[in-house]
C-alpha cells in the first residue's frame, strides 16, 4: 500500500506539470509526509489520479531518481530512498532559490532579519513536533 500523497497539479502554471510534481514530492519527502522507504504510487495510478499523461509522471520520477531521492525496485515498485533526507551539496544548491524567494518576500513585507530567523526557528520546532507525533501514532 502506498502512502497517501497530497499532490495537486495546476495546468496553466508557469512551471511544467512534471516540475510541479517533482517539487511537491520533494516537499513531501522534506516535510516527512513521505518517509524514507515509503512506496510511491505506480506511474499509471498516479497519472490516473492526477489526470495527466503517464509520460509526465515518468518524467518526474526520472528526475527524482536522478537526484537520488527515489529508487525503483524491479517487480516491487517505486520507493523513497532510505537516505533521501540526508543533505548534500546538491540539496543546498536546490534550496538556494527558495531561500532567495524567502528573503525577497521578507524584504517586501518589511520583516527584519531577526524576526525572520525567529520565524524560522519557530517553524522548525513545529515541524519537529509534528514529526514526533506522527511517529508515535505509527
Amino acid at each position, binding site marked *: 500500500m502506498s502512502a497517501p500523497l497530497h499532490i495537486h497539479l495546476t495546468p*496553466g*502554471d508557469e512551471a*511544467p*506539470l512534471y516540475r510541479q510534481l517533482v517539487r511537491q514530492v520533494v516537499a513531501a519527502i522534506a516535510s516527512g509526509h513521505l518517509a524514507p522507504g515509503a512506496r510511491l504510487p505506480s506511474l499509471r495510478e498516479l497519472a*490516473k489520479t492526477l489526470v495527466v*499523461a*503517464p509520460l509526465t509522471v515518468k518524467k518526474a520520477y526520472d528526475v527524482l531518481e536522478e537526484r537520488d531521492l527515489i529508487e525503483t525496485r524491479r517487480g516491487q515498485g517505486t520507493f523513497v530512498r532510505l537516505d533521501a533526507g540526508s543533505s548534500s551539496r546538491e540539496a543546498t544548491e536546490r534550496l538556494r532559490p527558495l531561500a532567495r524567494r524567502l528573503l525577497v518576500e521578507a524584504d517586501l513585507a518589511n520583516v527584519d532579519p531577526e524576526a525572520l530567523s525567529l520565524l524560522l526557528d519557530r517553524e522548525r520546532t513545529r515541524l519537529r513536533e509534528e514529526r514526533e507525533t506522527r511517529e508515535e501514532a505509527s
Partner: protein
Amino acid sequence: MSVLELTNITRVFERGLPVLDGVDLTIEAGQVVGLLGQNGAGKTTLMRIALGMLRPQTGTVRVFGLDPCERPVEVKRRVGYVSEDQVLPPYLRVKEVLALHRSLYPSWDADFADELLGRFSFQGKEKIAKLSKGQARRVAVTCALAHRPELLLLDEPAGGFDPAARREFLETALQLLADEGSAVLFSSHHMSDVERIAGRVAVLDRGQKIVDRDLDELRESTTLAVLAANNGVVPLDLKALDGCLGARIVRDELHGLFLGSPEAVRSRIASVSATQSPRFAAITLEDLFIELVEGRR
C-alpha cells in the same frame, strides 16, 4: 512503423491560399501530440487528410503504413475520430447510434461502451435530437473511443463540454492511452488540456508547422525577454537574432520569444541594444502560444 506519417503535405482549396504548405508530422505508437494553432491555421484540414477524407495535392499520408485514400475502410476501422462539427442521426436513440457503430467496427468493445455511457450518465434511450450539444458530443466521443482505436484523431473534442465533462473526457482518453498505448493527435484551444495529456506539441501557423517539440522541453528551453518599446529596438531587430521564435509589441513593451537560456539571450540582445537590459519573465503555456503565433505576424 509509425502510426501516422505525413510527409510534405500541401493542400489548396479551390479558392485562396494553401491551407497546408509542406507539413511533415510523424506520430509513433503511444505518443500524444497536441496540435495547436489559431482558427484557420489548418488543423482540421490536417486531421481530415490523416483520415483520408481529403486528399493532399503533394506529399504522402501513411496511417499504420497504409494509404487512407486507397484503403479507407481498413484505416478508418482502426482510427477514432471526433470533430468539432460531428453530427449524429437525430432520429436514432443513443443505443441505436452505438449499435450503428458497433456494426461498423469489428474491434468494438461493448462493455467499454456501456461503461463510457454510464460515466457520461446516459441511459441509452434518449433520442439524439433531444440531447443538448454537449450531450451529443459525449455520444460521439463514446463512439470514437469504444472500438479502442490505435490512433485517435481529436479535433476540438472538448468544445462545448462543461469543465466536469472535459475532465471526464480527459480521464477516458488517458485511460485508453494507458490501456492500449494508442497514439493521439488532438487539437484544442484549452491549453490546460493540452498540458495535461500532450507529450509533444506541434504548432501550425498559416499552413506551416512552426514548432514540433516535446512540450516540457519547449517550455523549459524558451525564454521570454521583455524590453521597453520605442527605445530604438523594433520587433524586426529581435526577429533577426539567432533562436528568435517571435517578437511583438504589447502596449509599451517589446516581447521577444527565444530558444535558449536567459544568459544566452541576454548576450544576443546586447548585440542589438547596448543600453537596454532585458527582463526575463516566466510564462505559461497559453502565453507561450500567444507569443509564438502573434510574434510571427
